């Protein structure tokens, strides 16, 4: 079938602002949007720039706004979109070229929550023990591929770029609720601050945007509660 692909293009060397460009591509219903972008790049217009790596939803490189929603181009099939498909860069991060955005602010927020196990007690000879239930407690957060779909779908993040954003909070959650971790309070400094969890307006955009089906909003709420109860 013929598909019309409308892509928001921006070349910093030529353009003042982004503009739409339309391509016609032949597609199978089971093609991924990534396949269509490749068809454009390889057959029609080599200047189109986008990120991708694994091609099956694991590396998180190709998050983009597809028909108005944040999705991974490699996990979105033509049959679920129809014959006219619009593609734009994810919102709230500076666009560097076409579908490529500057990820540094996103990773700065990630680093701010201390996304690593904090436990200064000398480790045992063998593994630290953890029950399956304790392991299950933070399972959701371990699925995160740092694609930025959640953070860049969040209206608070669009308005206030200093907000840590859902992805960083999910990373914090992953450690706060890990029975082996002792760094909860250190993380609360960033999480409880003005750019932390209290900015969240529970809009659920993040949960809807997550390509890994992480209940992001729920995890943010759990972190809020943990900070509140920690005061008592």
């Amino acid at each position, binding site marked *: 079938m013929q598909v019309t692909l409308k892509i928001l293009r921006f070349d910093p060397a030529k353009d003042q602002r982004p503009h739409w460009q339309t391509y016609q591509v032949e597609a199978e219903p089971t093609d991924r949007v990534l396949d269509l972008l490749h068809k454009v790049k390889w057959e029609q217009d080599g200047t189109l720039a986008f990120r991708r790596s694994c091609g099956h939803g694991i590396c998180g490189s190709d998050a983009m706004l597809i028909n108005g929603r944040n999705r991974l181009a490699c996990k979105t099939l033509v049959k679920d979109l129809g014959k006219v498909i619009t593609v734009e860069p994810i919102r709230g991060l500076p666009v560097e070229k076409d579908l490529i955005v500057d990820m540094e602010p996103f990773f700065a927020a990630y680093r701010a929550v201390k996304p690593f196990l904090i436990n200064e007690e000398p480790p045992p000879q063998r593994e630290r023990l953890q029950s399956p239930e304790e392991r299950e407690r933070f399972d959701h957060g371990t699925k995160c591929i740092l694609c930025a779909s959640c953070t860049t779908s969040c209206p608070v993040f669009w308005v206030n770029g200093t907000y840590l954003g859902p992805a960083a909070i999910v990373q914090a959650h992953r450690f706060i609720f*890990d029975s082996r971790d002792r760094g909860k309070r250190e993380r609360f400094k960033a999480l409880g601050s003005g750019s932390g969890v209290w900015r969240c307006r529970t809009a659920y955009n993040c949960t809807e945007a997550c390509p890994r089906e992480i209940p992001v909003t729920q995890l943010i709420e759990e972190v809020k509660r943990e900070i509140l109860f920690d005061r008592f």
Partner: protein
Amino acid sequence: MAHRHEVIVVGAGGAGLATALYAAREGADVAVVSKLYPTRSHTGAAQGGIGAALGNVEEDHWEWHMFDTVKGGDYLTDQDAAEVFAKEVIEAVIELEHMGLPFDRLPNGKIAQRRFGGHTKDWGKAPVHRAAHAADRTGHMILQTLYQQCVKHNITFYNEFHVTDVILEDGVAKGLVALELATGELHLFQAKAIVIASGGFGRIYKVTSNAYTLTGDLQAILYRKGLPLEDMEFYQFHPTGLYPLGILLTEGARGEGGILRNGLGERFMERYAPTIKDLAPRDVVARAMYLEVREGRGAGPKKDHVLLDLTHLPPEVIEKKLPDITEFSRIYLGVDPLKEPVPVMPTAHYAMGGIPTTLWGQVIQDEKNTVVPGLYAAGEAACVSLHGANRLGTNSLGDLVVFGRRAGIHAARFAKDADYHELTEEHLGPSRERIERIKNSTGKEKVAVLRAELQQSMMDHASVFRTGELLQKQVEILKELMDRYKRISIDDKGDAYNTELVEALELGYLLEVSEALVHSALNRTESRGAHAREDYPERDDQNWLKHTLAYKVADGKVAFRYKPVVLGRFEPKARTY
């Protein structure tokens, strides 16, 4: 721009991050140069597990793991490497746990383990639970955990920098040149020690589990400079690639009890590996699948694939232990593994061969193990040789932590006593010329067209089954493609994020590693592990119990030298399962 660090690691997958972390712990100033963001490296796609004789579920010993690795590698595995590996991977898994890796757990709180192909107890008598796992995203967890630790240690990252040259002068590694994707600027990196951990090159084949970015860049760069590539003829096809895309479905699915069936519904592995059946090593299973299809017993309208049947497993096992592959199957094929078998076919997966190294990751340049001072390699880019002629499932994740750690420690210690070498702007010259030539070319050849021809022809002539005739044909095709490659041109003449330029450079690397692979395969007149020659069906220990070192002489001309296999504990025997 110029940068200076004691140890510079190329690649930010599991091997690169492990190397960087341990080098930093040794006190070195470390930087990582990667063409991706670190968390996007392909280690993240590894699913099933990391094998280590923890003995958490049942009795297990590192000697059994060593034996399985040597036998799995069809006795081409260097046994000193296998011994170091089987011992140290236990410690490495415990260290990963201490770093916070969220392994699945047993009711007693210990790390859970599952079965995997080729892993056995009692010297091959029955499958054993050896693969420590975190659902079916063990690689993702390893990558995330190692990156988290690198953040903790404030390691410097140059993200989205595409390495275009390794500076080797007077037999010594002095630095790197890399293209900053965001700006198109060339950067000079001065280092006392360089570690290549840039991964594999599955993109030489049409059907592959590998990311688009796995194009053998650094293997090709070193090979062009006259360094050898070892055992390139041994390329692994993973049996269960999702048909027809090639996306990986972990061997852990068979470890949990999944069964391969042909178009007639038969459990065909009973014929090929009567003792461990569907848990035979990958080369054995991949060949069996091809044979079933070739003999007309394939599944589907074209009878060109087989089926992975999980329908008899409890739904909670599939949902809890194999969630990702279940989702892949649902999304890409519309097939629900709970209810119907999943179409699969072998997919190009892992390079057993690569940059030859010592047990400490030092790159060697000849059969006498002469090291290149300051140059190291680890992970899939390297060849220790742990995997020999065929890698066992889960041993890639083990390899990258064990030998990444060793390379990192050695490189840091080497750097302490070494000086920086003088580098000048002139060292950027060769990279600049290559890039300008591509950007200014008015040739008519298209990168995508050449790449597609390469990938299809490699699939047809140099994949699971090989003959001298097919390989010779591929030699000719490669010569022609290399010639046409000189006439490629690109649309994008800009500087910022010129990803078309990157793809053009990558195609050059794909052609080089293909050349090394095909010539090495044509040269080896026997069948061993993943290298199956139909015109030489037997393993020939008399003549071929040795490693291939392939040297580029000119385009289309390859010279060979040979390195003895390190034997020891286990004498080569017939390989049956």
